């Protein structure tokens, strides 16, 4: 085999990346993955050519979204036919398919031209660590996360809280919330829970949750 053939094989080889999506923001990591799938991270990138690399995204179930994005953000599916207009909130979508959130973020970061389909086909998403052996063998590099993984409150050891420097002293007369809410819990009898009336027509797509999900506007979600 000639030297230049070996060189061409090396230069145009398709590199397989692994991405651990635990605690990562799908939007920021979606931008990185889209760039790698299109091959724009290579100096030999050319729009006509498919110089993209493959990416295996794991732990997409543990993706972290900002603030109350799980509830307020939604997947809008608009079709011309009736009854196919859906506004699925992300938490519902996550239940249906844990890998879909990251997939949609990468899809939105890709320019919507004809080869997007083929580039997206090079993205393999898995909800947990379980990856088929023949795929994990291909991996040769790992994409680094795009945010610092925070420490959960229940992971804090009492030692940390003690050593953390005291910024200021609480005033003596301050009363922390010592109300014991469990006492005032009332179990709602089933007959009181509002039934979902089946509504047809324009409201059909929107009215499928017993709590109000303002998908377009940002409002407080009233949970009773």
């Amino acid at each position, binding site marked *: 085999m000639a*030297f230049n053939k070996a060189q061409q*094989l*090396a230069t145009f*080889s*398709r*590199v397989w990346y692994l991405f651990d999506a635990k605690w990562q923001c799908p939007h920021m990591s979606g931008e990185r993955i889209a760039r790698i799938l299109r091959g724009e991270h290579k100096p030999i990138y050319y729009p006509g050519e498919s110089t993209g690399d493959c990416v295996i995204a794991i732990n997409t179930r543990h993706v972290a979204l900002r603030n109350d994005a799980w509830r307020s953000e939604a997947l809008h599916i608009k079709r011309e036919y009736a009854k196919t207009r859906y506004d699925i909130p992300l938490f519902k979508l996550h239940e249906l398919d844990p890998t879909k959130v990251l997939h949609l973020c990468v899809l939105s970061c890709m320019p919507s031209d004809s080869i997007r389909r083929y580039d997206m086909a090079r993205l393999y998403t898995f909800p947990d660590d379980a990856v088929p052996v*023949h795929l994990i063998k291909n991996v*040769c590099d790992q994409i680094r996360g795009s945010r610092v993984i925070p420490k959960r409150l229940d992971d804090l050891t009492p030692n940390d809280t003690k050593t953390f420097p005291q910024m200021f002293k609480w005033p003596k007369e301050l009363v922390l919330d010592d109300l014991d809410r469990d006492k005032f819990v009332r179990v709602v009898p089933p007959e009181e829970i509002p039934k979902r009336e089946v509504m047809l027509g324009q409201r059909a797509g929107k009215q499928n949750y017993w709590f109000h999900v303002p998908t377009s506007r940002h409002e407080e979600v009233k949970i009773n």
Partner: protein
Amino acid sequence: MVRLLRYGTIFGPLKDRWRYLYKRDLYKRRLEAGPEPERFRSALINWNYDAELYACTHRFGEKLNIESLRNAMTDASFLKQIVKQRTEAGLAATDQTTLAFTHNQELAKQGKQIAEDFLQKALHYWYPKFPQEGIEAITKFLLSESTIADISSGLGFKTLIRCDIPSPRPTMLTNALFAFIGSINENTGRSRAEVFVADFILTHLVGKDINEIWQVKNPMGLLTKVLEENGRQAPESRLIWATGVSSVLSTYVVGVYSNKEFLGKSAGATVSIAEEMAARDALRRLFETDEKRAQIPFDKLYKKGLLLDK
């Protein structure tokens, strides 16, 4: 601008029917008659052999006299043809007058010898670490008939050579070029002939890779032999990279090391190919004939004064 729609043919838009039929008939006759027989360039009117030879002497900046060039350009088959024509014309073999010119076999032998020596010297000087078999393989490739035939047809000897058939065969072309080198050697001296060889035969290597001309059957075996000579340990190959192992576009990058020192690396679709190419790459780096090697200074070989003393 309204354009009339007209019938059209390969001869252009159809104006008159009789013209179209006439041309179609001519075309059919041509196909039946077959291509024109090949003719000697000297058969055409605008041909003057002395002027051509005079121009040829000036073309390459070599000061040759016309007679030696005429000898270099005449082929043995041309002389045979003359003798045959004379015998047909009834002249007995004895009283045929000797010709003013001779064929170019001896000059060709001389030229080939000069070219061979010079090429060996130049390659050995510029690639000192390259083994002798490699240099011989390269000189054999450079002096092979096909290469020399291309070179001489590129120098315009195709029409200048006098031989029995219109387009000279590769052997005639090679003889002509070597005879030309021999005649330079006679007229102006060996150094001038060697500069000619450097400018036209050695430059044939410009686009080519030395390591590919010399096909090494078993690169790893050769590598072990070379390392033993240098007193280093046997080569080991390690996998440096492997992507897409189970996919179709799999790439392995294998590196060759001896006693933890890096020798060479290369990529391949499978591990065996990558290893073999890595061995070739290691050889290339050991012999210092890889891309970062400077190009052969074709015109400065003598200015560097390195070839004269050898």
